[in-house]
């Protein structure tokens, strides 16, 4: 369980998040939905510990060690090394010198790219590498910030399949997304954000069948 109590994050006088008051019992995939600039990324970063609240508190009921968490950024951040070195990085940091990447490379269809320099990859390829790097440690908690925003349809389908099977295997996933269709396909719960304020969590099916008042305008927008 995670509990956020009156969390605010402000920077240079601007509100990025808040008030965020959420008590969630993550199961499978929890989608973080909301319009542009509503604070989805800040919310995920805050849960992961990349942003410290300006005020308020965050509590996780079970202590999940930082090394049991992974974060996939919307814009992939890759080191100036080969794909193989990028994917293996988390394991190398844990002292595993020559990790076997066969399985993860198969999962994200990276076999042909392993020897390539990361700087030569397309945006979609780079995102798959970033995901493989996040997945390789079998995290307990996975944060995905718009993971398919820059992917084509086929790669999106691949990534969704991986997310689904990962969640089934017990990893709890927090994922922000613009796509309601994607959230319908993947999520069990939805947290909605509007102008930094949090609403929910809601059961995903109920959220789409009977949207809460706060989300109706955005839902009616039709995007």
């Amino acid at each position, binding site marked *: 369980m995670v509990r956020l109590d009156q969390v605010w994050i402000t920077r240079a006088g601007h509100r990025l998040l808040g008030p965020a008051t959420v008590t969630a019992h993550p199961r499978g995939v929890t989608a973080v939905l909301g319009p542009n600039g509503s604070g989805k990324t800040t919310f995920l*970063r805050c849960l992961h510990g*990349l942003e410290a609240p300006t005020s308020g508190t965050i509590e996780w009921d079970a202590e999940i060690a930082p*090394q049991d*968490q992974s974060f996939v950024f919307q814009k992939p*951040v890759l*080191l*100036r*090394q080969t794909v193989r070195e990028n994917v293996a990085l988390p394991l190398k*940091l844990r002292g595993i010198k020559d990790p076997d990447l066969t399985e993860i490379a198969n999962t994200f269809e990276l076999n042909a790219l392993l020897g390539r*320099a990361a700087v030569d990859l397309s945006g979609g390829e780079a995102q798959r590498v970033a995901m493989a790097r996040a997945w390789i440690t079998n995290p307990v908690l996975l944060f995905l910030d718009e993971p398919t925003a820059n992917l084509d349809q086929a790669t999106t389908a691949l990534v969704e399949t991986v997310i689904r099977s990962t969640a089934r295997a017990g990893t709890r996933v927090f994922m922000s997304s613009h796509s309601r269709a994607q959230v319908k396909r993947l999520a069990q719960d939805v947290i909605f954000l509007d102008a930094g304020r949090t609403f929910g969590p809601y059961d995903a099916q109920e959220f789409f069948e009977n949207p809460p008042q706060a989300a109706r305008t955005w839902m009616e927008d039709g995007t």
Partner: protein
Amino acid sequence: MEWGDLTEITLRSLAVSLSATGVAALIAMPFGAWLAIQPFRGRRWAIATLNALIGIPPVVVGLVVYLLLSRSGPFGVLGLLFTPWAMILAQVVVITPLIASLTHQTVRDLWLRYRDLLVSMNTTRRQRLAILLRDGQRGLMTAGLAGFGRAIGEVGAIMIVGGNIDHATRVLTTAITLETSKGNLWFAVALGAVLIALSLVVSLGAHALSRGERRAQW
């Protein structure tokens, strides 16, 4: 000076300046990288001071090192004055701020890009430094070459602490000064050409030894 001495002073120039660059890089690169990623009170002042030290007059450095190494100075007992060791020491002092500042800029730019990733991965400070220094190798090489360029072209400090002694501490820059004062202008010009060639050879050699341009995202 005989033409035969040219090889000797060229090799001595190279040895002194490469040694100084190596020592300065060992000090300046970790320090510059640390300065880029470690927040602490007064960091802005530390960076401003470091940048100001880039312009420190070599003659003043030479004077200070001279006072430290002279027989009546605190390190006089070591007997280093008027030896290549004193010249190396003076050059280290002159170029360390330059290499540290350029390293700081390189690592700071990378840190801005990698910070979230490396924090998210729960990396230790040592691991962060290792990753940033590895990925910043192009910038670090430029910093090293800038330091070497300044060291090999430096004359004020090494003239004071080395003394321009024939077959002992004479290097290309001090030889140029001497030959010019003697009126051997063509010889001085020839020595200058050797100095420039040496600088170019070291620079091109460093580039050739580094990884490919495309791979390292130059």
